[in-house]
Structures are given as C-alpha cells and as structure tokens.
C-alpha cells in the first residue's frame, strides 16, 4: 500500500475518515476468528454512501483490494483484512433510515446492530426474526453477508428470508438497488445471491427488512435425556409428527455442566437436554405442546421444566446461550465448528463424535441447533501441551468429514470465509465452484472485493487453521455464543 494512495483516499473522503496509524490499524487485524490475523494497508470509516463510493472507485482505479467489515464478530474470517488493501469499516453508517409499520418494513444502514432493529419496532408489537446469539454486537450488514441464523430460524427462516432489498456499491463504485421494499421485484434474484455472499460481491450501504408481528403465545420446555440417542430420536419424532417448533436446541453433558458452573440455570445433570419452544396461535401452541410432552416421555425424557413466565423462560435461554462462552472454564482453547447434517442422522453422528472424543482423548462439547441439524462441536485442547493444537485441528476436520459423509454441509451459519475455503473442494466439484465464479466475475471482474475468501486459493490453503479464542466482546461479557 503506497502512501500516495492513502493520501488520495484522504483527499477524497477527508482525513478524519481514514486510519493510517499502524498501531490503530491493529484493532482491525482479525474478526471473531482471532487465529487469522492480518493488518490492513489502511482502514476507512465512511459515514455516507458517497464516501463508500469514493473509496471503492479509488480502489477500482488503482487495482487495490478492499474488504468490508461490520462489527467483526464473524467466525470464519470473512472480515479478515487484506494486507495490501483497504478495510472499509461500516460501523459509522448506523442510522435507522425508516420505520414503516403499516407496510411492516424497516430500512437501516448496515452498521445498525441486529437487536437494535427489534428494539426500534417492539413498541409497535413487531420484531425482526433472525436472532444470532451475537445479536447485541453484530451488524445487519454482517448478517446479510453471512446469511446469519439463530435459534429461532427453524420456523422463521434465515436472514435471506427477511431481507427484501439492499442498496449496494458495486466493485467499480456504481450504486445499485437490489430488490426493493415490495415482496417481489421483477428480474433475476440478485438479492438471493448477494445475501450470503460474504462481502465478495458488493459493499452494502442500506438494507430493507421485513418485520413480523409478535406471536400471540410462546411456550418453552426443557427435557433431560440419558443418552444423546434418545434426545436425537425425540428431535426426529417432533419433525415427523408434523410440528415445526420455533426452536429445538440440544446440549450435551459437557456443555450442560459448563453452563451450570457459569450461570446456574438449574439444568438437570444429564447426558443431554433439549430446549423446545413453540409459538403462534394460542390454541395451536397448547395442543402441540401436549404432543411435545408426549414425545419427550416416549423417548425417556425426564426432569421436564416448563417455563411458567418470561423470567423462567429467560433463565432457560440464558443457560443455553451461556454454554458456548462457559466452555472457556472447561478448556483453555477450543475449535468451534458449524457443520450441518440431515436432522434424522443426529444420533449416529453424535455417536461418531463421542467415539472420536474417546479415541483422541480430547473433550468435545456439543451445543447446537438440533431442529435443523446445525452442529456446533467444540473441540477442547490446551495450547501448552505439545501437539494438542494439531490433534484438535485434525479432530475438527474429521467431524466436518462426518457431516459431509451423511450429505451435510461445511457451514450452516458462520460462513466459509478464510477459515473453510480450503475445505470447499470436499463439498463441491471444480465445475460447481467454476459456476459460482461466474457470478463472482459478473459482479467483480477485477476480483478486488474481499479476495481470498470463500473460494479455495493456493495462497490461502497453505495455511493451517488456528484455534478458537474468545472474541473480545465475548470475553468482556457482552455476548454469548451459540
């Protein structure tokens, strides 16, 4: 990165929006995947779409790569800076542009936090459905880029089901409006491919979201099981019974104990617990709740807790959401993975993971979105013990291969990013990847927009993925991890 280019950026958007100090730039060297680090050539903090355009245009003219960054909570290294590039930090573009209750829409700038959307519309009886556990600290722009999920996406869908339109700066600096505020806009579904493209197609500068009405009734149940097989079978039985709960989450003994030690949610000491939440019309919820209780009993569920009020419901969810961070007490370091399996295969895959735990001697905790088969195995290890980090890495890849063996996916919500790009050929053929590249070049012929992410490249795939460490915000107690 030449200082002339940085001077040019300062001329175009003003020096107060440009960070060139090497020390300050360290703030941005990683996202939530802190094992991958790289100091950006320069960082900019635009406040207007014109500034974003000016920066992107300058990059386009000078062939300089650029990477958009939201709140930096991503877990796959999607916002990992390019050492010779510009990091476009979107946090100052955090205005709520329009709240349109009659049309059940809200338009925000991408730096607005996920939970802020719900806060803004709650007084009107509405909420924004996708609820990543990081919702206090992650941005709508990051959510759009990752197609983020959350515990309640089982019934309501992911970010892609709730974004109606986006304003975006293309990699040559052109401003475009993808989708809109109406439910359909004619044309190719560019929005469908922009969502989840991990910042590799454009820089998003405004987002229109769909709002949902708060459901009339919510009921939450927790049940304990003596084996993950029983818990897994209960999940299958719920799905087979034709019930789509708002959420079905599972924790195993390791993560239950960790959560108990950390926040004392009063969970039973069991091999597994399931948390099932139903919402919707009162009569329907009541009837389905009885079915859930019966399914739990049929699968030897015990220690059933039914939330009587919001406080008890909150306590159950606190236990669930604290589990991830609480693993820090069990182990100095751990890998987190995000593989997905067909939900009927839960018992067998969990058994394979259990066996791997015994064979490797490393503790593996499981806390995950059981209803849609999205695993989050946490492979614990100690950096201080020689060779354990490498062993843990092997164990973690082995688990990903179990997911692919049963027809699953490398990632359900955290994205491929820099972290799993090298695994992509295990899931997709060269032709599949080349077809995706055709989309890429249609948007970004010069390949300047978040390069070295999502697609396997030799430069990237020489590197060894590193361990998970607590995100700074998490360590500070601002968020728990699911």
């Amino acid at each position, binding site marked *: 990165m030449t200082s002339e280019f940085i001077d040019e950026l300062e001329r175009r958007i003003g020096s107060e929006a440009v960070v060139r100090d090497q020390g300050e730039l360290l703030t941005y060297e990683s996202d939530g995947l802190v094992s991958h680090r790289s100091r950006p050539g320069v960082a900019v903090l635009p406040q207007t779409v014109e500034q974003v355009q000016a920066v992107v245009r300058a990059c386009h003219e000078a062939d300089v790569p650029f990477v958009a960054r939201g709140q930096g909570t991503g877990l796959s290294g999607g916002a990992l800076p390019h050492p010779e590039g510009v990091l476009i930090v979107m946090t100052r573009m955090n205005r709520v542009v329009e709240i349109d209750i009659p049309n059940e829409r809200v338009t925000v700038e991408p730096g607005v936090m996920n939970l802020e959307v719900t806060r803004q519309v709650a007084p009107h009886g509405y909420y924004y459905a996708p609820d990543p556990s990081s919702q206090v600290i992650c941005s709508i722009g990051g959510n759009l880029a990752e197609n983020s999920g959350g515990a309640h996406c089982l019934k309501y869908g992911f970010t892609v089901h709730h974004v109606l339109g986006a304003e975006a700066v293309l990699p040559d600096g*052109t401003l475009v409006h993808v989708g809109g505020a109406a439910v359909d*806009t004619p044309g190719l579904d*560019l929005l469908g491919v922009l969502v989840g493209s991990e910042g590799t197609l454009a820089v998003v500068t405004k987002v229109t979201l769909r709002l949902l009405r708060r459901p009339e009734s919510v009921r939450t149940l927790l049940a304990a099981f003596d084996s993950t097989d029983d818990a897994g079978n209960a999940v299958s039985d719920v799905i087979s019974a034709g019930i789509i709960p708002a959420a079905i989450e599972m924790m195993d003994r390791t993560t239950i104990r960790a959560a108990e030690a950390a926040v004392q949610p009063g969970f039973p000491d069991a091999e597994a617990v399931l948390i099932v939440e139903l919402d919707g019309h009162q009569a329907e919820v009541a009837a389905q709740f009885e079915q859930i209780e019966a399914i739990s009993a049929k699968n030897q569920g015990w220690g059933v807790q039914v939330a009587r009020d919001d406080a008890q419901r909150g306590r159950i969810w606190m236990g669930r959401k604290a589990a991830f961070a609480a693993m820090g007490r069990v182990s100095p370091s751990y890998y987190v993975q995000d593989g997905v399996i067909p939900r009927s295969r839960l018992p067998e895959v969990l058994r394979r993971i259990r066996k791997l735990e015994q064979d490797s001697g490393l503790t593996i905790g499981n806390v995950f979105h059981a209803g849609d088969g999205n695993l989050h195995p946490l492979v614990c290890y100690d950096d201080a013990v020689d060779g354990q980090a490498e062993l843990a890495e092997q164990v973690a890849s082995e688990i990903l291969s179990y997911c692919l063996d049963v027809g699953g996916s490398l990632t359900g919500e955290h994205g491929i990013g820099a972290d799993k790009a090298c695994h*992509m050929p295990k899931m997709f053929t060269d032709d599949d990847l080349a077809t995706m590249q055709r989309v890429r070049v249609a948007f970004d012929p010069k390949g300047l927009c978040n390069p070295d992410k999502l697609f396997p490249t030799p430069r990237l795939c020489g590197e060894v993925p590193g361990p998970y460490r607590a995100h700074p915000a998490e360590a500070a107690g601002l968020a728990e991890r699911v």
Partner: protein
Amino acid sequence: MHDAEGRRAGGAADAVDGVVPRWVAEPASQEGVARTLTQAAADGHSVLVQGGGTKLGWGPRLETIDVLLRTGRLNEVVAHRHGDLTATMQAGTTLAATNERLGQYRQWLALDPPDSTRATVGGILATNDAGPRRHRHGAPRDLIIGMTLVRADGVTAQSGGIVVKNVAGYDVARLLTGSFGSLGVIVDATFKLAPLADASRTVVVELSDAPLVAAYATDLLSRGSTPAAIELATDPLRVILKFESLESVTAGQAEEAMALATSHGGVGQLLDADAQDQFWTGHERRVFAEEGTLLKAVVMPADLASSLSWLDEAAASRGLSYVLTGQAALSVLHLRLMGPAEQQAALVSAWRERLTLGRGSVVVRRASAELKALTDVWGPLGDTFEVMREVKRRFDPRATLNPGRGPGGL
C-alpha cells in the same frame, strides 16, 4: 428417429406459439440433458426449455426454435427424506405427482401455483410461481435448498445440498429460481417440505369496498389469527381465508374470522370440506384458466386499497374488464384483463407510472402478440439490469438458452 437423448426432428404437434421446432429432445437423464446442450452449443443452436408447457405463452414471440428441450422424461421423485422433511425431484415432475408421493408421509411441497397437474417443478422454479398459501409458506425461492443444473455449455453443476440450513458457497439455486430458464437448465431440485395439516377450513367474506377489505385483513392478523392463505378476489369483492392446523384450532379460527366479518359490515360464509376444494379450484381457474391477458402486479401492503380502487376506475374508463385474485397481505395481485389491446397497454403504463421502482411492479405474464408489440412486458428493472445482463453473459455468452425469455428480455 430417436437417438439416445430422445432427439428427433420436430413436427407440427410440437409447435410452440405456432412455431415448429427443428429438433425436439426429451432426455431421460441428467447426462442426456448435458449431451443435448453440448450438442446444441457445438451446432450453434438455440434451446428452448419446456416443462409442462403451461407458461410457454409467457415471454416474447418466437421467430424460430432450433431445439425444443422437454423435461417430461425427467419425472421422478428422486428422494423423499421424510424424517428430514426434505425431498429431491427431477425437474419434469409435476407438482401434483410430487405431492401425491410426498402425501404418503403426510408431507407436501408447500407450493400451490396454478395448474398443478401440468406445472412441473422446473417450470415453477424457473418462474418462481406461487399461489395462495405463499402467505404462510413462501415462494419457491424460500423453499429451495439445492439444485442440479446444466449450463448452456453442457457443464453440470450443483448448488446447495440436501440439508435445510447451509451457507456454503454462493446460492446459485436461488439465482436460477425466477430466471425463466435464461441461465441454465434445471435438472433436479431439493426442497424443504411442510407437514400436511390435520384439518382445514375456508371462510369467504364479502365486503363492499377495497378499504374495508384491507381493514378487515389487517384487523384479523393483528388479532393473532394465523391463516395459511388470505386471498383477495373480485367480482364480487371478497377476502377468502384458509385455515390449516389441528381440527379444534381451525374451527376456532374460522369462527373468529366469521365474527370479525360481521363487525366489519361484511358477510361471512364457512365452507365445509368438499365445498372448499371445489371453491379453491374455481378460485384458481377464474384468472388462470380463461382467455385474456395475465398480469402480475405487486404493490406495497399499505397501498393495496388505493391500488384496487384506482384499478377499478382505470379499467372502466378504458373500456376494459378484469378478474383479479391475489395474496392480500403480501399484496401480490394476479389479473386477467380483457378489452382492446391498446387500452390494455395504456392501463399497464398508467399503473407503472403510479409505482416507485422497488415499491411495486406490473409484469405482463401472458399476452396476445398484439399486446406484446405494444408494451414492454417486464417494465423497468432498475439500476441492477446491467448486472443481470452481465450474469446472463457469464452463464450463457452466446445467448442460446431460452433467448429473450429471461427478465428484461435477457
């Protein structure tokens, strides 16, 4: 003469829009589709893809057809993973055949666009076509989780997979959904499914004017009612609700809807099981099974009432008549329009003038050659059209696949 791909010379019986294709190919496998496209690319031939043929009248008038590729022999439900609530269907499988098969486990592909006995999975995806229960379940783009496609150059690729949650790689399946066959030939697709409900009830509510219709729908939803469909229809103007859930729940919700109708000055009618099936068939046929121009209009929900009132006036003043159905809460309207072509064209442009880009659209789906010549069937596509054009160019550089049928004439 048939070769391995079921390719033969076209005849009068194969004519589309009065144009006889030079070749007709009916491949029975993914490899067969790939060979057909490779061959066509080598010959420099254009390819028109036909599923059930229910929507071939949509899109521009054809001059010639080199190869007509029919998906009819790709008609299998490849896998029904009932424990996972997912299924994979070949593109030529009709929606009705799909749902008959999935129904064995009391599940369904939760889409109800018109003409389910003829419309194929591939055609429904290519047009992102949906029906009344889109209100609850979403459109094809919301339900698709994986796809196998063959590009214009004969290369086969997959996107997504068989799991309901998956963010690995670009969502090419979603990009092809609604692309009107302009980017690739869909060979098979995987969807998340929905359980079939135990019981259903239909309530028909007649209301005297458009503002009342909008007020009734909003009021009902704000009371926690959870219909699977909330449809509009003219003439007479009414709201039709479909409740699908457990028996006791549908009965209760239907009763609430009836009571609310009375308090809005309307007349509610509750249909029993047999009557409701017949009713819904009739509802669909009123717009889709009769002669006339087909328009799809989308407006902002808060503008629904004013749009309906405007339409009434705009049609009458131009000597046009129409029949309308649509999803009230989503504000997606389907119109069958009748009357002089130049007046129809005038109505379409007048309507478009009322709408801001991104906040509404009017697309001409099916029309006479005369009307197609008088109007731009797609209307304005906004500032992303250049990107769409670029995507088309990257997928199909020689523009041989469904030429001119993609959005904006891509």
